């Protein structure tokens, strides 16, 4: 597999570390509860198809990126920095 790092260009998958589902969002202070955290820590969709997922370019620029990949074909739709490049 090859992944298009938004900073480094397309690189071999060996340079990356996989984390998983990028749709989960850590509960904010106002919504923090055991139930919310359980969902955040353990509950994952397991789609046969399009999935947004975190990868770390661990042997490259050290950016966490969000890759949109089809789990059936490995087709990569997009890859973007997890941290927006431009922030206010």
């Amino acid at each position, binding site marked *: *597999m*090859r992944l298009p790092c938004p900073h480094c260009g397309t690189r*071999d998958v060996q340079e990356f*570390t996989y*984390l998983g589902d990028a749709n989960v969002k*850590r509960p904010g*202070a106002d919504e*923090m*509860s*055991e139930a919310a*955290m*359980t969902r*955040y*820590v*353990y509950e994952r969709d397991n789609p046969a198809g399009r999935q947004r997922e*975190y990868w*770390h370019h*661990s042997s490259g620029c*050290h*950016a*966490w990126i969000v890759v949109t990949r089809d789990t059936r074909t*490995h*087709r*990569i739709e997009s890859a973007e*920095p*997890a*941290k*927006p490049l431009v*922030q206010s």
Partner: protein
Amino acid sequence: MANATQPFRLPQIGLVDRNAPLTFRFDGQALSGFRGDTLASALLANGARLIGRSFKYHRPRGLLTAGPEEPNGLVELRTGARREPNTRATVAELYDGLEATSQNRWPSLGFDLLSINALFAPALMAGFYYKTFMWPASFWERLYEPAIRRAAGLGRAANAEDPDTYEKAFAFCDILVIGGGPAGLSAALAAGRAGARVILCDDDFALGGRLLSERREIDGLPASQWLARTIAELESFPDIRVMRRTTIFGVYDHGVYGALERVADHVMAPAPHQPRQRAWRIVAKRAILAAGAIERPTVFGGNDTPGVMLAGAVRTYVNRFGVAPGREAAIFTAGDDGWNTARDLAAAGVKIVAVVDSREQVDPNLRTLCEGFGAPLYAGASVFGASGGKSLRRLAIREANGSVRTLACDLLTVSNGWNPTIHLASHQGHRPVWNAAIHAFVAGDLPDGMRVAGSAAGRFSLREALLDGAQLGAEAAQDCGLATKQSAPAPATDPEAVAVAPVSRVAGSRGKAFVDYQNDVTDRDIELAAQEGFRSVEHLKRYTTLGMATDQGKTSNLAGLAIMAELTGKTIAETGVTMFRPPYAPVAIGALAGHHRGQDFRPVRLAPTHQWSKELGAVFVESGLWRRAQYYPQPGENDWLTTVNRETLAVRGGVGVCDVSTLGKIDIQGADALTLLERVYINNWSNLPIGKARYGVMLREDGFVMDDGTASRLGETHFLMTTTTANAVKIMQHLEFCLQVLWPTLDVQIASVSEQWAQMAIAGPRSRDLLRAVIDEEHDISDDAFPYLAARMVSVGGGVEARLFRVSFSGERAYELAVPAGYGDALARALMAAGRPFGVTPYGLEAMGVMRIEKGHVAGGELNGQTTARDLGLARMMSGRKDFIGRVMAGRPALVEPDRPILAGFKPVDRAQRLRAGAHFLGLGRSADLDNDEGYMTSVAYSPNLGHWIGLGLIKRGAERIGERVRAYDPVRNGDVEVEICNALFLDVEGARLRG
């Protein structure tokens, strides 16, 4: 040179170099061949027909093919440590001094006692393995399994370490062309002319594919001239890389192709520093699969008799290698292509004794041709039996009218059409589709970027191969954004006929009719599978082992499917086909491993003081990738414990030094640096003054402890975090996740500085005295100026920047002194020199472990991913005034349940007894079962200060049970020791030593 020693070598035919004679040995016999031969062609030139014995029945076998699909001609190549079993003689390039041995025979190839297996054939039929498993176990273990292991099998692996080296390499191109036959060559040429970066791989040592084997004309000239001209032009392009002896073995996602280059398989031994093989990962935008086709055998009785060969292979031996595989040849063909073999054999002077064409209607021109051979033509007939044992002697032929005749001959060429070589097109999970017009499977949906050309696409004529190649090569170049010029007209070829009406098996055969030669699967095995209900292709494969040998059924799969289709009254399309998966051909594990073997299996990291430790005679231990000094034995110390005891006592009694550079070090700066620490550690940081260090514990989000270490505040917004050695990379990644994903608005920058700083621990009551002699005078390190947990910039050696931390793992007065990594060695030596008056002692990981257990400090054994801060007695560190990672989940009922195992100390009741980590705790008098399990010992050490073994462990309600006795039960090492539960702090409970 018609050669007395090569009686079957043809004069004046072939591409072998007659001026380069080579000698080789087969089963100890000295033979000769020429450069350009394969082992197979050289063996045939010498008249060898019997090459090996079959897998199950030990039947005599000869060569069936001339290429990588060969199922029979497997030999052990080379000797000693380089001995390689199951090497296909058909692709082993001949070199001077080659040694090969036939395999799977005993005591000799010609006289094989184990062919007696054939008499037990009914027992070895389809489903044999599954059925024997149902027999009584004692039968299987004592009788069948050992006997079968000896009798059935393939070659022997070398029993010494491989002396050769292997490499891994990457390559990138616009267009990868797979196959160097007419289609591949014209594709590469078209793409190259358009300016594309092209890699052309061919598994043969000579480019040309079938052109090397055929007597064909292109543009009115012998094909060899077109070939020479094309290769010369390809090699003139700077951006075309031609890789001979290179097999593409796998197709992976996103245009990644696995290739194996046999760099030095064609010589006796690799040159110095030359790898034997190279495993390539080729990344290509487009690929053109021009892998040609594999001829299919016909299933009839005795079809495995040496001397029965595929027709295309016979043309290869005649036209390319100048070898006649026999003297009197019969032709058995289901189509036009078999006639080409008849023509070429006749032209080479081999007598044609008969042509058996299974088609009733045979073209009049062919009839005329047959008359020219002076041979009878049997149209609508079939060969139903071949016999002769070790070499073909006679055929049984059934004519169209049913009458039977026998025929003497020593060669039968079998032509039954060709199967496109589409394996690579299926590696991404795409199913082949049945093409009734050519009676073969062709590629269906294709991997991204791949196209198929020529025979591999089922377009078997030379004309189509050249056309496809030129067109697809140009299109691929366009896809890569390159403009192609008006394409040159395709070269003209001589007329050719490729019609075929395949015969899957000959009915009413005499003798065993083989479908899969390598796994000894016959048509009867397939009938049995059908009868017993194993009819789907996947069941058929597993039940009969059809297609499961090293050749993966390259010559057998279709015949098996066709017979199953016939038996079940389905079409082949309905029957389907099993998937092709990588690798296309066997790949040695050594090639995949490359340099990663032995001590280079993983990279090794050395501490900055490694050389210094080595000079002191340190014993090193692997710790992750690191080699760390474990202890420093002195003369006369004959066991490690003596040494470790000395080191421990020396630290507690004076001063010791130890390299702690392997700890992870992360520099953290920015306006929100403090906020980051507050969120990742469980404890408070806001009140940490500049110039101070603090111990911290991190949890995972699920509430379990992830890591521990210290962080020091070097400035208002500047911190230095340390992690455990094992988690250095993981914590860096975790912090990056926090900053980039969880809290991207925090104004913090982090950098790993683990490799930038060498760090020495200086521990013991005399540590400050020693430091005083090393640290530049202007820095005050008195206890008032530099108390416990102070952390500041200092300098050493007259101005070398350094960082000093007063932290302690041993429980003694201790410091850690960090200098730029390049000064680490000098610092260690300076500490030793300055410490001589204090009796400074270098100590290793073991002594450090003893001292931390004496002090009840947790480390790897306790930070095992299954413990919470509460389990480790660190609950009071958890701040209630802030949120931090893991806070909520650490409060889950199961994680605060009172019965959870809690950290405690352990001493043997009989102080002379040894403790073992891993032992489980059981109540006294309780039986050793899971219900009575109360926890386990995590770390143990012999404490020279206390004079007995001590341990740390996790036990139910540990904190409430001080003084109670339990069993430490260790059935793995026969350990069963009565222990007393105690405080996890064994020494200096008040901490007086720490503060000095």
